[in-house]
């Protein structure tokens, strides 16, 4: 009995892995098709003043003289070897490697992601548990309504309002620009406060609502009645018995939100001029940097897929019931 379960589990994981690899191939190939569908002549955009010979050379370098399959596999070959292509520009001698521009922009976005997730969880976990514990009271109803409102406000609207209030009216923070940690932790945090708040308010609201609903249903379970009839304190029951089984949806949602911020924070990056990964991607698309678009979107998709996989595995580890339910 036990052994067959492990075998089926391994088989399930393998099937998922194969599916994931197929999705990875299809996604990257789909991006290739989309990039090749971009209208206009990319080489004349990249090298506006190039001679016909230079244009032909660039065309060959980009692989545009090949068909879409040859183009895809030559890109893929470079990509898996860590060569993400060149970001062409007329000023910097032929262009900059995409990988060095990633190295410059990605850390900012990763930090933004990390801070946002941390702040969102730090506020939503206690709040969600509290609201569930006091479900249907006036406190719960008021806060739930406020959260509903918050979750509906687009993050750029919050960002712009903050930039005006804190940046202009009260003149507390500089509304634009990123300051790395190396230039002082205090200044770094100050440059991230408004972007993080803009991204967090909505997620705090969403996370709290998810946790509240799940906690309310956990509170109805027999083992909770059992624990409270044993005379355990409410605080102990909430944190030790109720929180873990109630946190699954929250954790999934947190992981997926985090993953989507890799490219999805681009609007906030733009509002606060952080020049992060999202803005790099948006700029590459705007000026038709074929290889950069291809490699960056592929990276985003790979990160997204891996995050999903990790969530799935984690999900099964944290709650054995999921395994059994799925096996059934």
């Amino acid at each position, binding site marked *: 009995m036990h052994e067959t379960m492990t075998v089926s589990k391994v088989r399930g994981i393998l099937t998922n892995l194969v*599916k994931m690899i*197929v*999705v990875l191939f*299809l*996604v990257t190939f*789909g*991006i290739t098709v*989309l*990039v090749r*569908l*971009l*209208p*206009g*002549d990319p080489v004349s*955009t990249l090298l506006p003043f190039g001679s016909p010979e230079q244009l032909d050379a660039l065309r060959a370098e980009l692989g545009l003289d090949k068909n879409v399959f040859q183009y895809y596999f030559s890109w893929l070959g470079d990509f898996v070897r860590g060569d993400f292509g060149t970001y062409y520009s007329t000023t910097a001698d032929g262009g900059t490697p995409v990988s060095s521009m990633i190295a410059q922009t990605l850390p900012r976005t990763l930090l933004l992601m990390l801070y946002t997730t941390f702040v969102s969880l730090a506020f939503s976990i206690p709040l969600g548990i509290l609201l569930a514990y006091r479900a249907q009271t006036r406190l719960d109803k008021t806060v739930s309504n406020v959260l*509903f*409102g918050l*979750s*509906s*406000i*687009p993050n*750029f*609207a919050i960002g*712009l*309002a903050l*930039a*005006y209030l804190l940046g*202009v009216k009260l003149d507390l923070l500089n509304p634009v620009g990123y300051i790395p940690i190396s230039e002082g932790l205090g200044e770094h945090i100050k440059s991230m406060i408004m972007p993080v708040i803009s991204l967090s308010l909505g997620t705090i609201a969403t996370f709290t609502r998810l946790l509240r609903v799940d906690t309310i249903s956990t509170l109805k379970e027999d083992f909770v009645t059992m624990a409270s009839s044993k005379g355990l304190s409410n605080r102990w029951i909430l944190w030790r018995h109720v929180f873990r089984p109630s946190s699954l949806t929250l954790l999934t949602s947190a992981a997926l939100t985090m*993953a*989507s911020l*890799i*490219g*999805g924070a*681009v*609007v906030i990056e*733009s*509002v606060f001029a952080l020049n992060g990964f*999202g803005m790099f*991607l*948006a700029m590459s*698309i*705007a*000026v*038709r940097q074929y290889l950069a*678009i291809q490699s960056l*979107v592929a990276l*985003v*998709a790979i990160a*997204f*897929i891996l995050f*999903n996989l990790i969530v799935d595995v984690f999900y099964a580890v944290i709650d054995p019931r999921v395994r059994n339910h799925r096996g059934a």
Partner: protein
Amino acid sequence: MARKRKPIGYYLSSGWLYLCIFMSVFGGLLPLPKWDDNDFEYTGAGLFTPGHILGTDYDGADLLSQIIHGTRNSIVIAFVSVAAAMLIGGILGITAAYRRGWVDSIVTMYFNVTLSIPTLVLVLVMVAVFSSPDPFDPSGGMPRVLVLILSLTFVIIPVLGRLARSSALSWTGRDFVLVAESMGMKKRSILMTHIVPNVVPSMMSVGFLAAGVVIVVEGGLSILGVGTNPGESWGSILAKNRGEISLIPHTTLIPALAIALTVMSLNYFGDYFREKIDGREARI
């Protein structure tokens, strides 16, 4: 059962949405300054300036007229792309769920592949694909509104399609479907009489949420400089005036407020209908 009174949020949300629809149809007939007329006596006027209730932007264009003018594009983009995606995604999802086999595998694979690129990134790529050949001349090629509608539709098809598929799957196993099958009812008529009518309500409730997402994404695209033409939708009014936020903040914050109120109303309806559906399912 006594009819329950609808909550106040219902009236507020529907009131706002009706107002938006009214403005997008009849907004041009209101006795207001033209949205693109520049009143150079009042540039960057504040709120409640005589003749310009919501003030003007840095060109002296009346903000209220701009907001009303922008309503049409914001609403049309959201409505058309969600409706199209609902139709295409619904057909794909329900067919996949009912046919199973290789049809299901292909459709599911298509959904998964598309969903593995974050929405905003995919929209950016799609907008570039549909845009004019010259990235430095955005006015060439298709009208911007059409570009946005096509891109957004493409991106939300898998979201609504996957929902339709899972919802249809959950209904195909129900007793009344099995009964209909055993009585010899044709597959196609089972689909039309038993599956589709049950899938549509849950798609509608997600459709409201999706419309809210579309409005937000459209605003984001405007901020990134690839939205509608300047001043033609809420997002692009906001994006156009963003640089002046320290001097005339209302020209940025009021369009942001319009977007927020609309999204809030749409989300409210999404939640409201979902609760109704859940209640109905609980009674079945």
